[in-house]
């Protein structure tokens, strides 16, 4: 998550900087927001798309979209969470259009078996890094993104609820499905090891 008082913008918090941009519509002030978040947004786009040129274009559009929708940021969540929500949704929309894949179910609310949840997590964590990279490349963008948010960014279920605007059970189910599909892909890609 974004630090409150990070590089650029002196002593202003992210939210104070946003208020300044909203009031002034000043590109230079927005540049300070860009400096604070560009790295993370770009890397998130790159993780989701695995394509540098595409990550470049998506990052450009995400900041433009954030600027144009800044008046809708009401401060209920952190600015970083709000920006990552735009990032996640924009990347996913783009990838879905490109792949013409099936849309994710909006409400997956079946009960999660916590025994399986722990077992899958343990199995996933035991995969070697280079194998995991191949497995993630094999998954669809939404599964890949949620696994990266959870295990790379170490976002809690609560953070994911804010980010994805979903209920707790829906987030847990989405995570469970992503883990299941990752392990299935691992078994298909590396049958001798699983």
């Amino acid at each position: 998550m974004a630090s409150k008082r990070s590089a650029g913008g002196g002593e202003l918090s992210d939210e104070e900087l946003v208020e300044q941009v909203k009031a002034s519509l000043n590109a230079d002030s927005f540049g300070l927001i860009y400096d604070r978040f560009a790295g993370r947004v770009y890397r998130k786009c790159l993780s989701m798309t695995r394509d540098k040129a595409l990550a470049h274009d998506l990052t450009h559009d995400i900041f433009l979209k954030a600027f144009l929708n800044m008046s809708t940021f009401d401060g209920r969540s952190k600015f970083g969470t709000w920006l990552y929500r735009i990032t996640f949704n924009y990347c996913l929309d783009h990838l879905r259009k490109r792949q013409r894949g099936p849309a994710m179910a909006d409400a997956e609310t079946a009960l999660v078996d916590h025994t399986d949840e722990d077992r899958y997590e343990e199995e996933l964590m035991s995969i070697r890094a280079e194998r995991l990279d191949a497995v993630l490349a094999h998954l669809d963008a939404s599964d890949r993104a949620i696994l990266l948010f959870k295990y790379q960014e170490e976002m809690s279920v609560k953070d994911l609820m804010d980010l994805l605007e979903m209920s707790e059970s829906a987030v847990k189910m989405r995570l469970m499905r992503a883990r299941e599909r990752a392990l299935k892909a691992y078994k298909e890609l590396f049958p001798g090891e699983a």
Partner: protein
Amino acid sequence: MKQNPFKLISVDEEPPEHLRKEVLASIRLVVLMMRFAQLFLADYASVLFDKFKLIPGDEPTEGDENAKP
């Protein structure tokens, strides 16, 4: 303790330098177009008056009301 494999594959690249210029150039153009649109979509006379008037302050006075054509 075993290391989290997700951390090992994390991307540590920075966005290209020129991207910042591109984003801010687009923002500047958008702001310009917003101001331009505001000129035509809003009450252009009052927008122009606000842009060019010398006396600061937003609140119209009684005198201003009477001064309208």
